[in-house]
């Protein structure tokens, strides 16, 4: 599971049960969730249970796991429970057993064996398109659209983009969405980027697409679109083939409206608004896969460690940082220059090079805007020039340390939003709870002396408490 799909997973987990049930009617949705949202262990569990005829006793499941795998098992089961994939049952003899939800199991079987209607995976157009476009064109189209949007966010903040020129290329709908997602804000008619916006720009492209689409999903009910319809369309897009044109005749009204919005982001391409076919771009088909979108192309900001360690690292590095904090960047891309200028004091620009210096002032300004030192360092590392890559580490350690120290001076406190759980009746109750919270990965902090624990998400904990209370009542 990549960082990008984990955001989508978080969103999916919070949906109510009937939304899940409706979603699971589509084999393409089920396959997409199975393929890239579930942790590997959860996949194994689902696979093992898929063709079972009856419920599966919890005791039998325990036999599959070594004692040291208990935490991983609890985590996998809690994800499956949240997504309403696995049902936990208790029979009259108080034996706990597990069962897959019928709808999910049916759709997954259909997806795997290819039975049922194929409509769920998109219907290719049966007439040859006279103006057929190729993959290279689609890539270029998607890159241009997406980059324009990023530049709209960053460029207008640092004042490089005269907002009118860029603003024309970015649709009104897109701008509204960026504002709705709190990625940019408008003060006195001037657009500036927010803390969330920075995190967004510095993400890997795939993660960016998901963040934007999640905002779109939250926004969908206001536009009179059903969330389920939107989600299943997105998952369908993820299963389409690049370079193939698909017919629009099988789409619902909501989905037709979506096509229009998505082509504004460059996720799908249509020749005209009334065209009977559409092409998914690379941004769409990589939605539900781990391979990155648009990675081959060096002008897009991609800032994840997976990118840095991947095979894509080659000659795309362009940044040189010296031990005296001077920075040289061989680039003429306005997007890259504006990203650099977020945390660098740029002084000179040549046709193929900009130079500047990392100063305390420039770093603290970036930190105030919400960029972390970690993000800055990993950006510099990802795009280190080939010459810099001969050193180990790529960026001089003194510079890295100083960036961290500058950040620490500005930020003296570390905050985590969440819930404090207190007033436990007994030591045992306290221990059970923090142990559960720890194994599901939501525990942030605990204090044994005061018997309090802090968690960043409450849903699973409250389910755990309810279940335990019920058990206690039954006992007593």
């Amino acid at each position: 599971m990549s960082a990008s799909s984990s955001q989508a997973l978080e969103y999916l987990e919070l949906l109510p049960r009937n939304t899940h049930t409706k979603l699971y009617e589509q084999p393409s949705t089920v396959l997409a969730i199975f393929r890239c949202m579930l942790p590997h262990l959860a996949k194994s569990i689902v696979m093992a249970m898929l063709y079972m005829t009856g419920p599966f006793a919890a005791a039998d499941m325990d036999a599959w796991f070594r004692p040291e795998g208990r935490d991983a098992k609890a985590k996998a089961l809690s994800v499956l429970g949240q997504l309403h994939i696995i049902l936990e049952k208790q029979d009259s003899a108080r034996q706990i057993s597990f069962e897959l939800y019928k709808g999910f199991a049916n759709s997954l079987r259909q997806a795997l064996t290819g039975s049922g209607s194929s409509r769920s995976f998109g219907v290719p157009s049966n007439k040859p398109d006279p103006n057929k476009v190729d993959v290279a064109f689609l890539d270029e189209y998607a890159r241009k659209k997406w980059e324009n949007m990023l530049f709209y966010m960053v460029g207008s903040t640092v004042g490089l983009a005269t907002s009118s020129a860029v603003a024309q290329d970015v649709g009104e709908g897109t701008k509204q969405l960026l504002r709705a997602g709190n990625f940019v804000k408008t003060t006195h008619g001037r657009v500036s980027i927010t803390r969330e916006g920075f995190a967004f720009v510095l993400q890997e492209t795939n993660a960016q697409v998901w963040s934007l689409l999640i905002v779109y999903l939250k926004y969908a009910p206001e536009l009179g679109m059903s969330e389920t319809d939107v989600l299943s369309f997105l998952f369908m897009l993820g299963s389409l083939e690049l370079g193939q044109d698909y017919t629009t005749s099988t789409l619902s009204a909501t989905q037709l409206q979506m096509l229009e919005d998505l082509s504004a982001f460059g996720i799908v391409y249509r020749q005209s608004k009334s065209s009977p076919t559409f092409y998914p771009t690379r941004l769409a088909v990589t939605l539900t896969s781990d391979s990155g979108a648009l990675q081959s192309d060096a002008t897009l900001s991609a800032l994840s460690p997976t990118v840095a360690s991947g095979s894509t690292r080659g000659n795309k590095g362009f940044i040189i940082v010296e031990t005296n904090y001077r920075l040289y960047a061989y680039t003429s891309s306005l997007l890259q220059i504006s990203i650099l200028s977020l945390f660098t004091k740029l002084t000179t620009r040549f046709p193929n090079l900009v130079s500047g210096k990392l100063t305390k002032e420039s770093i603290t300004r970036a930190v105030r805007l919400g960029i972390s030192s970690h993000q800055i360092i990993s950006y510099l590392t990802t795009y280190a020039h080939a010459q810099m890559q001969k050193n180990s580490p790529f960026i001089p350690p003194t510079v890295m340390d100083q960036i961290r120290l500058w950040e620490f001076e500005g930020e003296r406190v570390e905050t985590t939003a969440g819930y404090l759980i207190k007033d436990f009746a007994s030591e045992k109750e306290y221990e059970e709870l923090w142990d559960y919270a720890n194994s599901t990965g939501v525990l942030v902090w605990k204090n044994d002396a005061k018997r309090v624990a802090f968690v960043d998400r409450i849903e699973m904990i409250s389910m755990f408490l309810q279940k335990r209370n019920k058990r206690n009542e039954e006992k007593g």
Partner: protein
Amino acid sequence: MVKAVKGVLVKCDASIKAMLVDIDEKNGHEFIIDELDEEHILVKETKVAELKQRLQNMMKERLKEPESSDSE
């Protein structure tokens, strides 16, 4: 009965905590829900940004920074 309180966990060192508690006391206890230990406090979610801002101002007043030379 177990209770869950919504809030923001603020982790800082003891000296910063003292300043945060000071700010809270001077403003009618409208920021802090609970002091958990030497390095952790629980703050009202809506007030975190303001508390951070006040802390920055306080630090600026109390700590004079040496002028950083920014010459090329």
